[in-house]
């Protein structure tokens, strides 16, 4: 081996070492939580903390038996899924029109949509809370779906728009000449072409809804509470039962983390509204 390539291999080894240390440190709380979830309550608080132990599903069983856990999971899935479906259904035709039939106002509308996303939730907490109370939407999944749809609609439109914009106009115009109507153009021509982008949009939206904690805590109670609100109840002395807390948290975090990590590439352009690609 030449000296230069030897040096390069050495460099790579050093960076590998530093990289793994940094990575493990960053993810440590998650890894620690995952580990604790498989301990008994007694093992969880033991010092020195055990790295190797006989794993048990006891804590998961306790969580499932003593709480309405599945109900919260169902609420999370229903709310995140419902809101995502609804916002994509609304955003598809909108982004399509903006990308393929832009008018002089399109850019202005896009920027305005972005600016609605800047409205801090807490600024409208009071009126939304009162509206929800009067319309009997407090602690309902329907209400939460509505809020999350509106909350993320600008992001969904922006992401879809940025993916659609990259599709050559000729293709859609060819469809137009073939007599395809708008719905056919979107469903048969556009969606197959932009499938990865649309999938990323859907996944990112699921992540954002799943992890949202301001509205879920303030607008739901026992009936429609998703996992974010459920985990918040562990802030009471419950939180001292580490194994139980870890098991509940792991169940709440794991599915969406898989989704999130799978979509991280598109996440960047989605969350920065296309400003960084």
């Amino acid at each position, binding site marked *: 081996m030449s000296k230069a390539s030897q040096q390069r291999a050495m460099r790579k080894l050093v*960076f*590998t070492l530093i*990289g*793994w240390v*940094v*990575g*493990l440190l*960053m993810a440590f*709380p*998650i890894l*620690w*939580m995952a580990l604790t979830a498989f301990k008994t309550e007694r093992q969880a608080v033991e*010092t020195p903390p055990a790295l190797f132990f006989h794993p048990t599903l006891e804590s998961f069983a306790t969580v499932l038996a003593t709480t309405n856990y599945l109900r919260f999971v169902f609420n999370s899935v229903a709310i995140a899924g419902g809101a995502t479906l609804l916002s994509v*259904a*609304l955003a598809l*035709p*909108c982004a*399509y*029109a*903006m990308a393929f*039939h832009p008018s002089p106002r399109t*850019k202005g509308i896009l*920027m305005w*949509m972005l*600016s*609605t996303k*800047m409205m*801090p939730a*807490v*600024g*409208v*907490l*009071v009126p939304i*809370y009162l509206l929800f109370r009067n319309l009997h939407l407090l602690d309902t999944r329907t209400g939460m779906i509505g809020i999350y749809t*509106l909350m993320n*609609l600008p992001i969904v439109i922006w992401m879809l728009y940025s993916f659609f914009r990259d599709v050559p106009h000729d293709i859609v115009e060819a469809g137009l000449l073939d007599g395809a109507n*708008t719905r056919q153009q979107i469903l048969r021509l556009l969606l197959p072409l932009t499938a990865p982008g649309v999938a990323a949009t859907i996944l990112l939206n699921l*992540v954002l809804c*799943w*992890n949202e*904690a301001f509205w879920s*805590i303030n607008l739901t109670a026992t009936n429609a509470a998703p*996992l*974010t609100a459920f*985990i*918040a109840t562990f*802030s009471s002395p419950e939180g001292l039962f580490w194994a139980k*807390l*870890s098991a509940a*948290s792991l169940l*709440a*975090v794991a599915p969406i*983390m898989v989704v*999130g990590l799978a979509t991280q590439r598109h996440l*960047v352009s989605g969350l*920065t*509204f*296309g*400003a*960084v690609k």
Partner: protein
Amino acid sequence: MRQSVDTASLKPLTVPMPTTEKPRGLLPRGARRMAMLCQAPSVILLLLWMIVPLVMTVWFSLLHYNLMDEGRQFIGVMNYVYLFTDPSLTDALLNTLVLVVGVLLASVVLGTLIALLMNQPMHGRPVVRLLVIAPFFVMPTVSALIWKNMLMNPVSGLFAWVAHLFGFPGFDWFANAPLLSVGIIVAWQWVPFAALILLTALQSMDREQLEAAALDGARPLVLFRRIIAPHLARPVTVVILIETMFLLSVFAEILVTTGGGPGDDTTNLPYLIYKTALLDYDIGGASAGGLLAVVLANLVSIFLVRTVAKSLDR
């Protein structure tokens, strides 16, 4: 009422065939109408979403309106007078500022360092990348509770155990440095976001230019200052602006760890408004605070919208 609008958009919309050659840049009438119809549901919903609550907030902020006595009475700007003379507001604004600036600093500095590191050749880089980014996907209530109970607990937490190993007493994080503790938890969620964005930007850099400069004998620090830093300027701006938006409304982390305390030590603006509205039932006062939050966020958003608008012009 809002629900009724969106169902209309789901109906198939038919486009009349363009019968004549369409002039450049101008859409045929039918297509233009169709384009408007496609956008209308989203635009109308967002318009309502923006205007209705905002108008209500402005109106409520001029009322004496408490959910406990249900009486409403117009009192002009008294809620604002009360808000701006309330010492809690000064604390809340200061805490908000410290939290936002502190986490931003951590995000930009650590995020840049991590991104530079991730951009180096290493074994198992995809896995390391996943490890680094993972915290961003943890819901705020989970990360706050794991940190508070399992890591920062002064008696049985892991940090205390490590401190004991080195002969130090356990540090009571939330009693002695409550705002810092909340800040650490929030930063843990947002540093990965900065790192991810900056890494993406780094990977879009011109490799040849970097290698040429390195061959010319440019030292890493010079390389960073002259080539990498200018390239990162815009993504860093974007990170700062987007994180500011989210950091201005940190809420769940405070709710489940400190409840705004001790005293007002970790009460930021959102938490103050939440307390006023849902714990004191003072709708008028909370609305005045809410409007202040809207104004502050809009000041930030003007800059963000401008930055993003530039990227549209490419």
